[in-house]
């Protein structure tokens, strides 16, 4: 073996790709060659330094939000609403913009009739999405961790002047994780946290009030929102889980009999 061949084998072995036979041949060469032994030390040092110190760039939170939104659009395309093409066009314009990474609030109106008339409602939906994003990005998703309604209900009652009925497993695959309180429009609102597979679902519950609920669903920044009224409460579910989950979820919760 000459030094040129040895140099190649040194790298191959460092990369964990050298077979035992050639590895032994390399050892024999190294035992007799100081310059190749120095090469081994130098290359080992370099590889270790690069692995230890080269910066690893993790995906920024905004990129994850953008991808979540894209996934929500993809779900719609499969439902045949034709939203995919429009979403693609919008995304190209978005990607071409200089501030593609900036927090842009893109609102996907899904043919929601009558919704535009409720300006207050649109703001409410946005506020709920922001509350959901804040909670999922930080570690404040759940203030009381429990899948037991007999723990969650008194926790909420002690902190609010109303008490929503609680269903631990309202529909197949969706389970209660706990709850927290959110301040929405100056009002303290019970927020039930459910989980569906890897998706966190926030269900904001408050006594039926001035803002009428609508059967229409919408998507804001990739998060889906479905709402329903029942049991004296307004129920609004926000999640990156699909509407095929959120719609039956709020409908079922709204039918929950008050305890």
């Amino acid at each position, binding site marked *: 073996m000459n030094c040129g061949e040895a140099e*190649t084998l040194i790298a191959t072995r460092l990369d964990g790709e050298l077979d035992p036979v050639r590895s032994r041949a390399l050892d024999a060469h190294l035992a007799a060659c100081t310059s190749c032994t120095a090469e081994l030390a130098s290359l080992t040092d370099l590889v270790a330094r690069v692995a230890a*110190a080269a*910066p690893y760039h993790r995906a920024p939170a905004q990129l994850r939000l953008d991808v979540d939104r894209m996934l929500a659009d993809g779900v719609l395309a499969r439902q045949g609403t034709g939203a995919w093409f429009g979403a693609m066009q919008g995304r190209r314009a978005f990607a071409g913009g200089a501030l593609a990474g900036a927090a842009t609030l893109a609102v996907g109106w899904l043919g929601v009739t009558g919704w535009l008339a409720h300006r207050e409602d649109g703001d409410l939906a946005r506020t709920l999405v922001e509350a959901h994003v804040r909670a999922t990005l930080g570690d404040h998703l759940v203030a009381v961790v429990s899948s037991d309604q007999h723990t969650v209900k008194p926790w909420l009652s002690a902190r609010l002047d109303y008490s929503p009925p609680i269903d631990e497993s309202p529909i197949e695959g969706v389970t209660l994780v706990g709850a927290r309180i959110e301040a929405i429009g100056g009002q303290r609102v019970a927020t039930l946290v459910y989980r569906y597979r890897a998706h966190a679902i926030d269900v904001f519950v408050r006594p039926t009030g001035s803002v009428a609920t609508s059967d229409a669903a919408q998507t804001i920044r990739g998060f889906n929102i479905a709402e329903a009224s029942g049991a004296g409460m307004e129920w609004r579910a926000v999640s990156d889980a699909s509407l095929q989950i959120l719609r039956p979820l709020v409908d079922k919760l709204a039918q929950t009999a008050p305890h």
Partner: protein
Amino acid sequence: MSGSARFSQLVLPHLDAGYNLARWLLRDAHDAHDATQDACMRALRSIDNVRGGEARRWFLTIVRHACYDWMNRNPRPGPEPEFDSVADPAADPLQQAIDRRESSALAAAIAALPLPYREVIILREIESMTYLEIADVAGIPIGTVMSRLARARRLLRRSPLLEAVGATRLGNEP
């Protein structure tokens, strides 16, 4: 399973790796963001074609293509952008300062490598991919992977940026 669910399961775990590759290839945070997002759209469109075990390799191949397309559309002449560094918060301040210099010196030295050498270094040293995986992602024969890696490492060792740090390290030894 829906395309979105498959995407969440197979591709999302590799979003960091995809962004990291894009960030190193394009050397710019905004460009890397857009190229990774573009790659995600391409991946979602052909998500039915990928098997579980090869998802990372498959996604990184798509990210690489998206980066090359991005570079073709947006040629970027000019100086190297600055790289931010990563330091271990647990280390003592002096060591931290040295680490930071080491990290940014390495980042600068890698960023200064020509693209074909830079990408094999990232895939090998940072993503720990095998020669076969690198060959697949970069679309080159295994022999070329090996010769490019060797050349890249020679260039790094000869880099004046790294030599400066080496001198500092020696200077700090008792």
